[in-house]
């Protein structure tokens, strides 16, 4: 059984940069455990001689000539930003002062 703990849920939420309320953590613990139980059935499949498939088509590097093209205009790039301080995007404090 893939029962996962509250701490597991909180750890994964931290990795995913996802704030969850206490209720959400509770619900997620139950639901993820149930889903993982269903997924665990894959353990019975013999894949000892099987390679993984990441894509069904053969992916090849796509090259183009190294020619400059017009970039997206700055005002267009910034148009959807929740916080801007032209000509920049503005973000909240990254490091506390004095560190």
């Amino acid at each position, binding site marked *: 059984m893939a029962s996962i703990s509250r701490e597991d849920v909180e750890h994964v939420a931290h*990795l995913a940069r996802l704030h969850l309320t206490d209720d959400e953590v509770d619900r997620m613990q139950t639901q993820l455990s*149930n889903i993982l139980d269903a997924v665990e059935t894959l353990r019975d499949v013999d894949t000892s001689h099987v390679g993984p*498939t990441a894509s069904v*088509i053969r992916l090849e590097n*796509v090259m183009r000539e190294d020619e400059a093209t017009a970039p997206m205009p700055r005002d267009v790039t910034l148009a959807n930003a929740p916080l801007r301080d032209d000509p920049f995007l503005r*973000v909240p404090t990254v490091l*506390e002062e004095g560190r």
Partner: protein
Amino acid sequence: MSVELTPDGTIADAVAALRAGDTSARELTDACLARIERDGARLNTFLAVDPDAARQAADEADAALARGEGADRPLLGIPYALKDIFVTRALDFDGRPLPGGFPTTAGSRILEGYRSPFPSSAEERLADAGAILLGKTNCDEFAMGSSNENSAYGPVRNPWDESTVPGGSSGGSSAAVAGGQAYFALGTDTGGSIRQPASLTGTVGLKPTYGRVSRWGMIAFASSLDQCGPFTRSVRDSAVVLGALAGHDPRDSTSVDTPVPDYVAGLTGDVRGLRLGVPREYFVPGMEPGVEAAVRAAIDVLRAEGAEIVDVSLPSTDRGLATYYIIAPAEASANLARFDGVRYGLSAGADELWENYTRTRGAGFGPEVKRRIMLGTYALSAGYYDAYYVKAQQVRTLIKDEFDEVLSSVDAILAPTSPTVAFKIGAKVDDPLAMYLNDACTLPVNIAGLPGISVPCGLSDGLPVGLQVIGRAFDEGTILRIADAYERVAGFGDLRPATARA
């Protein structure tokens, strides 16, 4: 020829009437807009409609028709809708809102009000083909769902029975086409999100081969599985729209450069000599008897038309769900990392960057999206990567190999699209696993990257049932031919919900 002006006909009939001068793009557009005006808010099909922009595009199409431009523009004058997972250009070159441009939400609060600076390939190609964009349709948030109940903008109602779901995730598109609000609509299909809602609404839904249609401008859910395709009211119409969409696009590195056949010319109505496999594993436990009966009857119709029906086995079918629910969430968790509250979309306004990431994402994503981000992040995290993610990719190889082997001895596979007809809104919202089972018959096709089409094959309990035809990679021609031949003789091509007759 005179045409009865209802928005419930086919593209083929509308194009013929336009060319003959019996109707105009403006009339067709007005008929769709009237239907949207009458039913749209109640069914919650559209997240954005712009009647003025649509009428203006219709007038331009009428002018083009008058100049005789219809011949090489197969959708000239035909009104359609785009699932709101496709970006549509909504900013001018100075970053100001473009008149007639639509926001793009992906059904999520986190993108509320987002205006794309560029168009999707689908929008561009359909504009080149002459189609008129009516608006953007409701969908499950980031295309994650099978009922359209995961939209941040409310559920969509199925025009066949408004207490039931239209399927998902492309539920607004399926309901709009079933309800005569558009001549066709585009959806996206990562695990069944075109075929399953087509089945539940009595429409034709096509998922092309992975790589057949460009995904440029389609907001990514699971990049190794996503494809886009049309909802239509006939198989012939599906062939017309696929012809306009298909082809190589240098902006999508997974778009395959392989010739696009004339899909309409391939609709011969003849299935004699074709070998069609029926995989026993697709008649799954929990399947409704009325659905099984309709699908079995459809298989008999194709046998009577001269196809050879053979029993085949795809033994790993029951591993599809588990495989999918590792691979799709893993890819989604990576794709959705871009929603960080910095460049676009919602920002929680916290005073510290880290806190702003987590608060923005916590407030902006709905429960199903959070669940899948968590599941995917877990499967990719240290200590679980090999046990879950690599294992799922290995089983993916097995599933694909089984399809390849079966399709080396049959021309196509016949199966149910969905194990049930449309279910009641609210019936499965508290049980994610029960909801995931809706896609048991469709998601193996995405895992293998193959083309699949759902075509109406009758009613069960008064609600539509879909027959799924699955083909070889890049052989959309054969599944369209089979579905069209079936549609011609089966007599379900005229199935319409009561709203179409009201």
